[in-house]
């Protein structure tokens, strides 16, 4: 069986469409983050691990009445509690959350209050499945750490590509990754899903995947450049994309299937994680063809216009 045999698409000829497409999605992402920022002070909905606060996940033996639970918390004098049905309604699970407690020594009192309030209303008909109490200090630390980890991993990959290819390759790949991250995070802001620590892991994975896709194309460009030095760069890039297209589509398709299986079967805890990957893999595949490769050509054309010698951005080192 074979798909995509002898494809010959002029990808670079469509670069303005790609640019428009990327701009629309990036701007949509930025706008939804800005909107979210103006409402909440954060660009994206943050999970309890970053935001701080208390979250108690409770499973009831029967379908829980959210209004009754809300009333129970109000009667117990708990302020600002939010009660939502968690995951699939048939699991009878409810998520009760409290905003951040500024007083770290009283951190635990919220959890106790919630459990006590439920106990007085429901007796033993419920089961506390998961409790997260996060103080402001830890949330801030995690926020900083996640930001740094993303930054460092992009830098690390940039340096590696610089060493293996050329600086412009590294920059193009990192820009493509940034593009993917922006759009994926924007999707979280747009759909109102929370970014938790696990989602950060997913975003970092998608950075790795997007990079992976980009490198496969770059590798082929490098190889083709070595063989045909007189061909215009745009043609070489087009040919390289076409040659690797079947691999790109197959791998992305298969990875997409595994991630989809994670999204469907992975349960509520991995929902955000797999959502990020489902979006990220689509965007990551697109960006290696539509963002990273055209950037190489654009850079070379720009160098040409500047009147500088336009060396083909071929590999520094050749290994077969």
């Amino acid at each position: 069986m074979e798909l995509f045999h002898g494809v010959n698409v002029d990808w670079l000829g469509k670069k303005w469409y790609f640019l428009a497409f990327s701009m629309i999605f990036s701007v949509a992402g930025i706008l939804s983050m800005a909107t979210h920022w103006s409402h909440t002070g954060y660009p994206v909905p943050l999970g309890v691990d970053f935001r701080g606060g208390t979250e108690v996940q409770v499973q009831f033996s029967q379908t829980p009445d959210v209004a009754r639970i809300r009333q129970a918390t109000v009667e117990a004098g708990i302020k600002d509690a939010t009660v939502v049905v968690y995951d699939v309604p048939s699991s009878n699970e409810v998520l009760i959350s409290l905003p951040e407690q500024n007083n770290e020594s009283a951190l635990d009192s919220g959890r106790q209050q919630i459990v006590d309030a439920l106990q007085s209303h429901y007796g033993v008909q419920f089961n506390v499945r998961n409790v997260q109490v996060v103080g402001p200090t830890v949330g801030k630390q995690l926020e900083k750490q996640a930001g740094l980890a993303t930054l460092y991993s992009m830098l690390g990959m940039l340096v590696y590509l610089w060493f293996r290819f050329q600086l412009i390759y590294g920059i193009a790949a990192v820009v493509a990754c940034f593009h993917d991250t922006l759009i994926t995070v924007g999707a979280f802001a747009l759909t109102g899903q929370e970014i938790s620590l696990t989602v950060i892991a997913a975003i970092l994975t998608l950075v790795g995947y997007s990079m992976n896709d980009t490198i496969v194309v770059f590798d082929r460009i490098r190889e083709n450049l070595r063989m045909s030095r007189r061909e215009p760069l745009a043609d070489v890039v087009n040919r390289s994309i076409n040659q690797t297209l079947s691999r790109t589509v197959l791998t992305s398709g298969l990875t997409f299937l595994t991630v989809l299986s994670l999204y469907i079967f992975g349960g509520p805890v991995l929902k955000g994680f797999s959502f990020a990957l489902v979006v990220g893999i689509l965007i990551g595949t697109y960006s290696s063809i539509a963002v990273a490769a055209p950037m190489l050509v654009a850079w070379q054309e720009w160098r040409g216009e500047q009147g500088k010698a336009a060396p083909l951005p071929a590999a520094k080192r050749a290994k077969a």
Partner: protein
Amino acid sequence: MKKNLKNKIALIIAVLLIFLYGIFGIPSGLSGKALENALSSRIHLGLDLRGGAHLILQVVVSEAVSAETDNTVGRIQQDLKAANLTYSQIYKPDPNKPETIRVEGIAPASASAARSLLDTKYSSEYDLTGGGSDTSLALTMKPLVEKALEDKTVQQAIETVNDRVNSLGVSEPKVAPYSLGADQILVELPGVSDLDRVKSIIQSTARLEIHAVVGGPFPDETAALASVGGAVPGDQEMVHGSGTLATGSDADSVYIVQRVSVVAGSDFRSADSSTDQNGLRDVRFTLTNEAGDKFYDYTSANVGKSMAVVMGGRVREVANIKSAIRDSGEIEGSFSPEEVEVLSKMLRTGALPASLNYLEDRTVGASLGADSIRAGVTAAIVGVLVVMAFMLIYYRSSGINADLALFLNLVILLGFMGFSGATLTLPGIAGVILTIGMGVDSNVLIFERIREEIRAGKAASAAVDQGFAHAWVTIVDTHVTTIVSAAILFLFGSGPVKGFAVTLTFGLAANLFTAVYVSRVIFEAHLNRLKPGEMVSI
């Protein structure tokens, strides 16, 4: 060539066996149950999968610094008295700066003597300012000394919490420094879902101290203040205590005690509960030698006076000193059995050098953990099966190569987890699934390349050769970049991110072996059987 191939196959089988051992160890039997038990004893599950409590504690290190400077205040008082140098008071001017001590009202004539005395005795730990014609001196703990003290405090707190957690019988607890913040401790308690009991033991930050009583008990703070003329002197403090121990009533009462303790926390060597001659429960304690000497000096000089046992910032007992005590004593009082147990357990495991605050607390119920395992494993199995089926359809016989390589990849990955004792978390399972994706990618890269070479008219073995050679460069680049980012995640990440980085790194390393080496060997075995001119099935 054939012999060479046999060696390669032997190597692959050996690797398979070694990593199967990594996963299962030597199972007691081959039944499903025995294998499952063997598996669960080798692969450590994270708290999110097995259920348990995860706490982050902040050690209030300033308390330890404060205790140390309190001690120094006491020593300076003694030294100056011994040298017959007069002063009006020695105190710590700012509660927020526990590292600074002031000595005031030194007679101008003896100022330089006092300065040189303090300089010789304390200059290794304190910076000395003032003095000369000035009548006051300030001692500030050196930043390096303070840092060392804080580090030691955190270390001690970790040891103490560890001992306490162990005394509770929690299996495989983890108590370690938490790298994200200064002076923080991470505590992981698998299988614990009722935190209240554990917390009450861990959090008994209650430093046990014995203070000299200046006055009390008073019914309230106003009365206590009145007794010292409206303001508590700098070297004394006001401590509340339930009247239970002293008077038998529950009413709150207030004592004025000397700020500097006679013995405290780490001065206690051991403690046990016992019963006194009247049948009342009490706690017998033993002091360290050094503290015993100090205690002896104090008690022999103060026979007939009172001392207060202060725990957790409250007076728990007030005792009259009947005779000099050296290194052992009893704390009497109407303790409840639980109180005696907690107290003696705490003293035995060492008192905490400073209080602990909770910064974070996550408890995953065992049922949620079990659900998560089921969901994660289902997702992984469905993902693998879909991918394997697709490879068989799309690449025909060569799909078998890919599927075998994929299977071996998973075995090696899990074996690594077993050997290294790394923890499998829910994001870790996600990492496994992503490894499958990368593994497939390598195979697809190689196979597509072989197809290209065949299309270009190469013979079977040359096409396979070229396909692997070209794809190898790409595979190295993609794997190294991903490993670079996984390693950075491992270094800078914590908790779930780390678990993810671990499986991803192991998986990618295994993939370099399986997708390239193993798949290649299977191709060679296949090529050997081909008739001349026949093509590989791809």
